[in-house]
């Protein structure tokens, strides 16, 4: 399967490095995609110097939504929060290296939506600090 199911995506889906929970986190957020039941929970630990010290996600959903979360977290850990805040939709799509139709776009971008929710301190239903 070329394109969408490149090894890269499938690897991150089947063997995610950042799936799980942190013992101690600074920011947390979760959201879902009710149309398809994708769900994503994200925890971030921000270091005193303002970088993302560590991060984890948990959730369920399609390969794309879950792999995208893993790839995204891999990319941001170690980076300054200010830089991460500027991370855009197009940046993520570049990272994934695939082109997507509108429905799958929502799957792929759920991770970014949850990340931004955490960074901007939104209140997620059911998410507790």
């Amino acid at each position: 399967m070329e394109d969408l199911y490149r090894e890269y995506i499938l690897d991150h889906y089947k063997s995610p490095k950042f799936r799980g929970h942190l013992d101690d986190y600074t920011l947390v957020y979760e959201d879902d995609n009710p149309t398809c039941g994708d769900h994503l929970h994200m925890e971030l630990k921000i270091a005193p110097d303002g970088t993302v010290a560590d991060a984890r996600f948990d959730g369920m959903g399609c390969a794309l939504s879950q792999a995208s979360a893993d790839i995204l977290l891999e990319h941001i850990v170690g980076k300054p929060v200010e830089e991460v805040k500027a991370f855009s939709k197009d940046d993520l799509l570049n990272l994934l290296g695939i082109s997507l139709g509108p429905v799958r776009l929502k799957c792929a971008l759920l991770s970014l939506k949850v990340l931004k929710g955490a960074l901007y301190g939104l209140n997620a239903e059911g998410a507790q600090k």
Partner: protein
Amino acid sequence: MTVSDFSRILDARRLRADFPALQRATRPGVPLVYLDSTATSQKPQQVVDALAAFYRSRNANVHRGIYTLAEEATAAYEEARQKVAAFIGAAEAAEIVFVRNATEAVNLVAYAWGRANLHAGDLIVLTEMEHHANLVPWQMLAAERGVRLEFIPVTPEGALDMAALPGLLAQEPKLVAVSGMSNVTGVQPDVAEIARQAHAAGAVVLVDGAQLVPHAPVDVQALGADFLAFSGHKMLGPTGVGVLYGRRALLEAMPPFLGGGDMIRWVKLRSFDVNDVPYKFEAGTPPIAEAVALGAAVDYLQHVGMEAIHAYEQAMAAYVLPRLQEVPGLHLLGTATERRGAVFSFWMDDIHAHDVAQILDHYGIAVRAGHHCAQPLHTKFGVPATARASFYFYNLPEEADHLIAALYKAKEVFA
């Protein structure tokens, strides 16, 4: 059932030639296998031609036009109404109201009939398998008026639990609104029996015929439907037109829904009087060309024969069901083998429905993934989303084989 047996029921291979979209490739070299007719059907050239011919030579606004073109347009529009009436066995054409789609048809009943006839504490009986179109309008009414909703449960096989019906009817519901065929499981409840019991209990019966009318012979008298809602686009017709059938006495007693031109008899600055049925419910310029093309779709369906279409899909269901069930890790939402159409929703261990649909698309196969506008049914079965393959009379058993093969491929990818 062997592949060659299918062609004895109906010559799908020849009929397919009428459908230009079925000749296209998904990608160069990958033919389209269209298994999403439950969402919307493809259109035969005859229907597209009817649209184009209308605009080319008979286009005018209907009603009240005295000039030749307007008379021709009006005649074409009213002829379509007659065709639809005959197609579903309505007593007269005036019982056919043209709307946008099945959804609007149900809403029309909820607004006009519901708000005039239902009061706080009154009961509406629905089923757990309803499409959102036959659910949300009643929820809105319930929230606004304090009407109660109760549901005929769905069994683990996806059928309706008919044993629960008498208990619900004993509460004397004012309305029983039930789907003629589930767009998720393909199950076709025994609507005639439900209607019989519901009428005996004094309820009005609305049938959501969005799936039933395209796939089985329907006679509103035999069905016992007081209201029947369906969409043109799922039965070879264009988008933008749907039908509300209503018994004349009910339609006449109902207040109007949308206000505007055509639905009035006269208008003063501060008051108006309504027109006769069905015009009372057709405010403004109707979907004229769309209704005319729906008439052409009805002609096509009748030419193929609704009995043959139904039999062909029964055969297809019998062919596909066991093959799907053989796929390891595949779970069907709705395993009923009786009274069902050729619609299959399923989920797979370790592969999300979206991924299934995406991989199938890679092989040219168009299936839908999601809750198919029947979220409560999915919630009941504990899955957020399924992939759905649905067959119409223009699908071939080879296409089913192709689907099954691709599902095995998907398992490999995700192994």
